């Protein structure tokens, strides 16, 4: 789910470049300040590991297909957010330069979508507080899957925002979201499984290689993280939805050229499958994230007006998502106490 240059306007590309470059510079400074020079070769080699790891697949039970590691979350677990972000950015840069994956103008978007969310949202706010000290427990697995899914959802969502804001693709916001979201839910689960498995193995074989979370685990940061994610998504969705009140049905009918939703849904499924293929094969199941720059963006026509009313409904929707996510967090809790 790399953004392509061809779908992006210079305004969006430039904004995301600025955001990613700023974050990159900040991370580079942070890393210097740690004075941990071991990080220099470690980051380079782990970046190469992420590439190499994609040569090895595992079979996903019951589907006949296979998945592999994406990278953002495991890097954050091993290196911490700052170094992880730098490594992800370098991997994406090499992909853009050598494999034409993404493209240079879209590189800012891709670094943001696949780097910021796993490193600075999913890891610190979801995985870290929920995983607990022992990385081999079911709880740590659940935390990895939840973190990967949320990271990827936010990233996929950013792709949609950036594409829509660029106004080069005609795909309406709503159907684009519907296209991306389920696919990235699947990718997220696969990514979470792969991450958790590898981390559990390494933690067992060599505990000192996996930094353990500092202090006692608490659910609060996780809830905060989920809350932020839910509010951003909810707010943005309702904001767009209000601009295209007829959003989905309209677009599906139009896409399919038929009025029955059935036909549209079938086509939609087919398209999703195509996207799934393209996402599983030529792409890397990296994490995505959400786009904070969105609010200020004075983009071209497809950007709907912000109104207080819709943002309120967005917040309500966000709270609903928060509730569901909170339930998931609570479900994890007993196991934490037990362990």
């Amino acid at each position: 789910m790399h953004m392509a240059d061809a779908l992006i306007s210079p305004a969006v590309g430039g904004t995301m470049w600025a955001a990613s470059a700023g974050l990159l510079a900040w991370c580079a400074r942070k890393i210097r300040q740690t004075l941990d020079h071991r990080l220099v070769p470690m980051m380079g080699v782990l970046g190469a590991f992420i590439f190499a790891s994609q040569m090895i697949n595992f079979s996903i039970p019951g589907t006949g297909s296979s998945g592999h590691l994406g990278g953002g979350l495991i890097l954050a677990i091993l290196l911490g957010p700052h170094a992880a972000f730098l490594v992800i950015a370098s991997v994406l840069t090499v992909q853009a330069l050598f494999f034409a994956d993404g493209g240079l103008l879209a590189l800012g978007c891709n670094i943001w979508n696949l780097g910021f969310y796993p490193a600075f949202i999913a890891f610190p706010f979801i995985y870290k507080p929920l995983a607990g000290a022992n990385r081999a427990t079911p709880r740590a697995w659940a935390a990895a899957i939840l973190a990967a899914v949320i990271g990827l959802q936010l990233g996929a969502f950013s792709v949609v925002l950036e594409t829509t804001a660029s106004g080069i693709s005609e795909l309406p916001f709503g159907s684009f979201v519907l296209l991306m979201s389920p696919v990235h839910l699947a990718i997220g689960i696969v990514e979470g499984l792969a991450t958790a498995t590898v981390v559990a193995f390494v933690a067992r074989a060599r505990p000192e290689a996996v930094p353990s979370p500092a202090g006692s685990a608490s659910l609060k940061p996780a809830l905060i993280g989920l809350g932020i994610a839910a509010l951003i998504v909810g707010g943005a969705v309702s904001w767009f939805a209000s601009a295209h009140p007829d959003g989905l049905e309209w677009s599906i009918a139009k896409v399919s050229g038929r009025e029955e939703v059935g036909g549209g849904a079938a086509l939609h499924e087919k398209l999703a499958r195509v996207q799934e293929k393209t996402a599983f094969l030529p792409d890397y199941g990296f994490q995505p994230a959400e786009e904070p720059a969105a609010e200020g963006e004075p983009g071209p026509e497809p950007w709907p007006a912000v109104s207080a009313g819709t943002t309120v409904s967005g917040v309500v929707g966000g709270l609903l998502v928060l509730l569901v996510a909170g339930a998931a967090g609570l479900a994890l809790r007993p196991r934490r106490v037990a362990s």
Partner: protein
Amino acid sequence: MSHHIVEARDVHYTYPGGHEALRGVSFRITHGEAVAVVGPNGAGKSTLLQHLNGTLLPARGEVRIGDDPVTRDTAPRIRRAVGMVFQDPDDQLFMPTVLEDVAFGPLNHGLAPEAAAERARAALERVGMSHAADQPPYRLSAGEKRAVSIAGVLALSPDVLVMDEPSSNLDPRGRRRLMELLKSFEHTKIIATHDLELVVEVCSRVILLDGGLVKAEGPVVQVLNDEPLMLAHGLERPHSLRHRHPH
């Protein structure tokens, strides 16, 4: 100059996992000597070598280079005197081109870019690799990689050369070239290796290590000719010695 003397006194080292790799190693190597460290896999050779430039620090005992004990504080200084060639050249050749890689050390030691490049070229010349200066290291053959890693160390003008398995992965010609090269160095040389023919040709003294302890030490011919001793430590009497000293 006194830096040419290398001394280990009762060196112990235990890896974080709990494995006791060195259990009291002592020896003294003087100016200009070429000493081989031999022993079976897992004997502790690499571990010992890493103590000579402070990559590892002993848990007990000490290593002295000249008059300086190797400690965290002296290590940066010691590393200027003790050049280390690692077992896998891929670990050592990390810069994008051969010239950049050989210049890495001189640049770190404060030389201006032109002077560092000058030194790097001279070192490449010395090992016969000038033609590869602009190539990326990963495209070289195993022998060429080895030569370049040696150049990278020579560019620092060390007093002591420490090498871990320098002839591994080399074809006979590459190995022959390497031995000629090593023989041409006047540095104090400490070479960990399984290649006993190389020991016979290049070194004057042998330290036999097994299980983290020195099991034997002495002139090459004497130690390597001791068949029972060699067999007891997973080694073989080299052919060249059989021919030279037929029983």
